[in-house]
């Protein structure tokens, strides 16, 4: 088979696949952040910690209760999402009238507490999570071997991203949400319970991060710091895609994952910094982000 710039195609496709998988996580996580940002105008720093929690909850469900992956895929986001709603009601709500920087600081504090609690009980070493039997094994695509679970991650991420986009852009609930983003006073004057909408939105955004966590559990080891560095890359993805833009989050997430994967092939030294370099370039030429409106 052909070779590209002296790089064997197996290595190239392997990294492209890895890039797409990372991109799936970037997309789902930045989507959750974008949804939350749209309505609450806050950056949820705790997103990475809640992603970790999603993975941990599914591990706990399996280990302590014997609940398999498929159920965890639904239960874990519900549990973490419910916790998110409690956080919104008890802590973020009182800060709503203040400078949004306080909410950022609060979620930063939450990150430390959540990470600390899991570190305290489970240490820093990872917990293995088995790939569900139905998804183990590999598929021969002709030009490469695709581990089925990895393909599953990408498919699930695409489905979730599409469903969220559909929910927000094409349904009645989504139209309330978009209206409340533009003008909360007006929307509540029409008799819509905006505070409830805010709570549900935060819960939904958090549930998305937990969903990503459950998907990540079988491929990365489940450990308390798994979300910490990831979330900052996701921040950069959001800045590139455009703050609060749903499309920007989805397309930005997948494509930057891909770019990162390709960088790993052609210039591995820059693979961890490439996204930040792109962010600097975007800030230089289009500060509002590629899909963003003027801020």
């Amino acid at each position, binding site marked *: 088979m052909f070779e590209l710039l002296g790089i064997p195609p197996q290595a190239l496709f392997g990294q492209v696949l890895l890039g797409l998988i990372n991109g799936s996580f970037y997309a789902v996580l930045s989507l959750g952040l974008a949804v939350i940002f749209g309505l609450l*105008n*806050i*950056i949820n720093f705790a997103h990475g910690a809640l992603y970790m929690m999603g993975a941990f909850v599914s591990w706990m469900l399996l280990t302590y209760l014997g609940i398999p992956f498929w159920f965890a895929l639904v239960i874990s986001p519900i549990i973490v999402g419910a916790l998110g709603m409690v956080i919104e009601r008890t*802590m973020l709500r*009182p*800060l709503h009238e*203040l*400078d*949004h*920087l*306080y909410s*950022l*600081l*609060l979620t*930063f*504090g*939450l*990150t*430390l*507490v*959540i*990470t*600390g*609690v899991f*570190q*305290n009980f489970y240490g820093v070493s990872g917990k293995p999570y088995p790939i569900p039997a139905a998804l183990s094994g590999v598929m021969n695509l002709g030009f490469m071997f695709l581990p089925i679970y990895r393909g599953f991650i990408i498919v699930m991420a695409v489905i979730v991203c599409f469903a969220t986009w559909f929910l927000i852009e094409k349904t009645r609930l989504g139209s309330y949400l978009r209206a409340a983003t533009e003008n909360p006073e007006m929307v509540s004057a029409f008799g819509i319970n905006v505070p409830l909408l805010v709570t549900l939105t935060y819960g939904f955004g958090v549930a998305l991060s937990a969903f990503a966590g459950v998907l990540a559990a079988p491929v990365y080891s489940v450990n308390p710091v798994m979300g*910490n*560095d990831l979330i*900052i*890359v996701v*921040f*950069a993805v*959001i*800045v590139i895609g455009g*703050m609060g833009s749903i499309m920007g989050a989805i397309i930005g997430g997948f494509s930057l994952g891909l770019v990162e994967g390709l960088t790993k092939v052609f210039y591995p*030294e820059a693979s*961890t*910094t490439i996204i*930040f*370099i792109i*962010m*600097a370039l975007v*800030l*230089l030429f289009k*500060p509002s982000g590629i899909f963003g409106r003027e*801020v």
Partner: protein
Amino acid sequence: MSKQAETSNRNTAIHQGRLPPNTRARMTRHHMVIFALIGLFVVIAPQFLYPVFVMKLLCFALFAMAFNLMLGFGGLLSFGHAAFFGSAAYAAGHAAKVWGWPPELAIAFAVLVAALMGAAFGFLAIKSRGIYFAMITLAFAQMVYFYALQAPITGGEDGMQSIPRNALFGLADMSEDGSFYWMVVAVFFIGILFMYRVIHSPFGEVLKGIRENEPRMISLGYQVQRYKLMTFVISAGLSGLAGGTKALVFHLASLVDVHWTMSGEVVLMTLIGGMGTIFGPIVGAAVIVAMQNYLANLGSLVLIIQGAVFIVCVLTFREGIVGVIAKWLKTRL
């Protein structure tokens, strides 16, 4: 005088090119008393506290004050100050270890490196405001972290170890903690007096004006972006002063110094002490450094406590320790 009237008076003063009353070059008496108390503390502290602990405290107090210059006086929340602190630590370490530079030059080099980085990151970051600004600075700092993790020059996971303290000006031996202590004290006072001067200069007043009402300052003809960039550079440079000194104190520059948890810590110090106050960050740094020191054997509980303190401060104690005291005393501290 009501707060609004005061603000509008000051705005008028700025407008007419006169300086508001508190812009005098002379220090007010109670600020002088506080500086004297700090001086007294550093003189007697080695009698009852471990010198390295006090030096650590002074470095972090300096770092927190530099950070507060941006947050408290410029209204710019940077979540990436660890980048300047940590890079400066590596710079000072490299200068002292590889080039054999004396401490004063190593620290000066560290300040230069941090200020240049501040200029580069600041140039890109000040295009945005508020939360965006925080995220962008955080992302840049993470880039520096990843670089430090991989680059051979930093020693990666091991960090840069056994950084020597060469003779001061090539003359005075600095290898003992007892003698280096006084150099740290000198650096600390130079740093905080410089910042005090900046805050109470016309530049500082314009900065506060930008924090309070940016569109108004633009309409008054101030080049707001330049002021912000300058603040960013000064704050980064002084964070570098703290970071470079810290590297020499501990003979070590490591990944901890550039990680975002360090950026978070300095935010916490400022928040606890009181953002926008002059002396708050020093108090905040003392609280956090002492807490880390005395609770060190609790392991990950420190993280939980630190996070809980963060949450409690944000929810109920936004003025900070010095902010509350200043309110009691009805004065600016």
